[in-house]
């Protein structure tokens, strides 16, 4: 993305989202809900890409952060009855931000102790964290436990979903495309060399975890207010894996590729409805084939070093 026009892009996306949301009621609601899923998955994939792709930390706990955001936002908005659109917007944005903030706190919590770990070890710890979150919600009777929690308001619409997606893309792209942000890549490429150049790897890793978790939390809040019903099982290990698949499919550290992959992998199951039970087989197969044929990601066309 061109740095100069980054802010214009963000404002344009927000305006477009708003315009579409005004006329959205004329659209087929089935496809409308799928576009929300697309936006939510874009947020999840782009934010995980900051952690896994740009910073090179293998996190398998993104669904955990998503769950924190989903439950937080749902509990907050459930306190309110019917509101006029303006008040609803205020409450909803507050709830989304609160969900994101709590998820970011969780990201900080996971980020700090896991910094001594690398590669597979970090993957296992983040996986364990995701499971802990899920089990906690499963046993929290106040939010419905394993039965799930119904969300009173279906406030997620085109504007909120795509506004948040645009914000996530903007934040990750703006961070990475700066002299400051080259530090994320430096930590990924060679931690020893990076620290010898005065880069504090711990700081960068924690920042990546916190920012990534924040947007996962926001995505969770949007998800909750789109489906209007959340269960702990919806944030299980498979959910984390499918976000990882989007990142790998798109190409680690390639924001545009990851967005395309998120869109593709959201639409694919819809077209594969008839064989829904075999979807996971397809996922796994896709991963194996991909690793063999295009280890750099489906949408990474330039050689890595040439990337601007």
């Amino acid at each position, binding site marked *: 993305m061109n*740095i100069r026009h*980054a*802010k214009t892009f963000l404002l344009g996306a927000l305006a477009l989202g708003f315009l579409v949301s005004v006329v959205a009621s004329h659209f087929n609601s089935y496809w409308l809900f799928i576009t929300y899923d697309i936006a939510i998955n874009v947020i999840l994939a782009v934010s995980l890409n900051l952690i896994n792709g740009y910073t090179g930390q293998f996190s398998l706990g993104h669904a955990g952060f998503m769950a924190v955001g989903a439950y937080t936002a749902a509990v907050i908005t459930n306190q309110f009855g019917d509101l006029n659109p303006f008040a609803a917007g205020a409450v909803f944005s507050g709830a989304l931000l609160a969900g994101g903030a709590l998820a970011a706190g969780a990201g900080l919590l996971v980020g700090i102790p896991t910094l001594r770990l690398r590669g597979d070890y970090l993957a296992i710890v983040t996986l364990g964290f995701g499971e802990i979150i899920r089990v906690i919600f499963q046993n929290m009777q106040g939010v419905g436990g394993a039965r799930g929690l119904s969300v009173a308001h279906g406030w997620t619409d085109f504007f909120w979903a795509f506004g948040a997606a645009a914000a996530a893309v903007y*934040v990750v792209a*703006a*961070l990475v495309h*700066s*002299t*400051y*942000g*080259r*530090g994320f*890549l*430096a930590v*990924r*490429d*060679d931690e*020893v*060399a*990076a*620290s*010898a*150049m*005065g*880069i*504090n*790897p711990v700081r960068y890793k924690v*920042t990546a975890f916190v920012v990534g978790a924040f947007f996962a939390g926001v995505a969770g809040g949007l998800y909750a207010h789109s489906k209007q019903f959340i269960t702990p099982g919806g944030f299980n290990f498979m959910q984390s894996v499918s976000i990882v698949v989007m990142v790998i499919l798109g190409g680690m*550290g390639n924001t545009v590729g990851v967005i395309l992959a998120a869109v593709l992998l959201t639409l694919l199951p819809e077209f594969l409805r008839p064989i829904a039970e075999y979807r996971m087989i397809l996922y796994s197969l896709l991963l194996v084939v991909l690793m063999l044929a295009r280890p750099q990601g489906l949408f990474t066309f330039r*050689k*890595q*070093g*040439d*990337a*601007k």
Partner: protein
Amino acid sequence: MNRPSPGAEKLDSPLLQLDKATLRFGGLAAVSDLDLSLGRNELVGLIGPNGAGKTSAFNLITGVYPPSGGSILFDGRPMANRKPHQIARAGIARTFQNIRLFASMTVFDNVRTAARLHCPRGVRNALWRGRSFRDGEKEISGQVMELLEIFQLGKFHAAAATSLSYGDQRRLEIIRALATKPKLLLLDEPAAGMNATEKAELMRLIQFIKDRFQVSILLVEHDMKVVMGICERIVVLDYGIKIAEGTPAEIRAHPKVIEAYLGD
């Protein structure tokens, strides 16, 4: 420390001073009781047979490993138990024996990453992209391009760092280290893998860097011709112990050095 006139004193005091610095891995002392002192704008060679502890000494100075004993003073400040990035900030930069460039980045970005050290702008600045961000980025770009031009790598600024020739990659690593504006530059076997012509050029380059950037240089090198040719003073390690120190001529004639290299 008791220093009445720090300004005048500081320039006389050594830039780097190791006092009985020791690095132990279990029972093995990779570096033991090493005393080493390096003045401002001085070029010192650190030599020794394979496994003598030269790179370990580097890792000790740059904080990759905390010392098991002894003290390290840089610019009069204790460096022991500081993290590598803090030591880099204090003014010590290094290159690596096996080249460690940032492989996914361009030549420009490799240097830019290091150049950020003295312009600490962070998350908020990068997100807001306001005037101070743009000015800062422009300033860093200018510094990076200037550095690259000095070393004739300007035309490769947009190329992948790993696409450079071996000699240029070594040079880029030195440029990257210089971008942190160090007071002390540690070069770990810069001549490794170079042919005679490249070595001769490297010797000129090191001399040039020392004069142009006014840095002190500590050089670990296997190639005797390079070390003897440019170093003002040489320290010889063997089994982690300093066995000799002196001018190139003195070292060449030192019986312990000859014994260490040739056996008795």
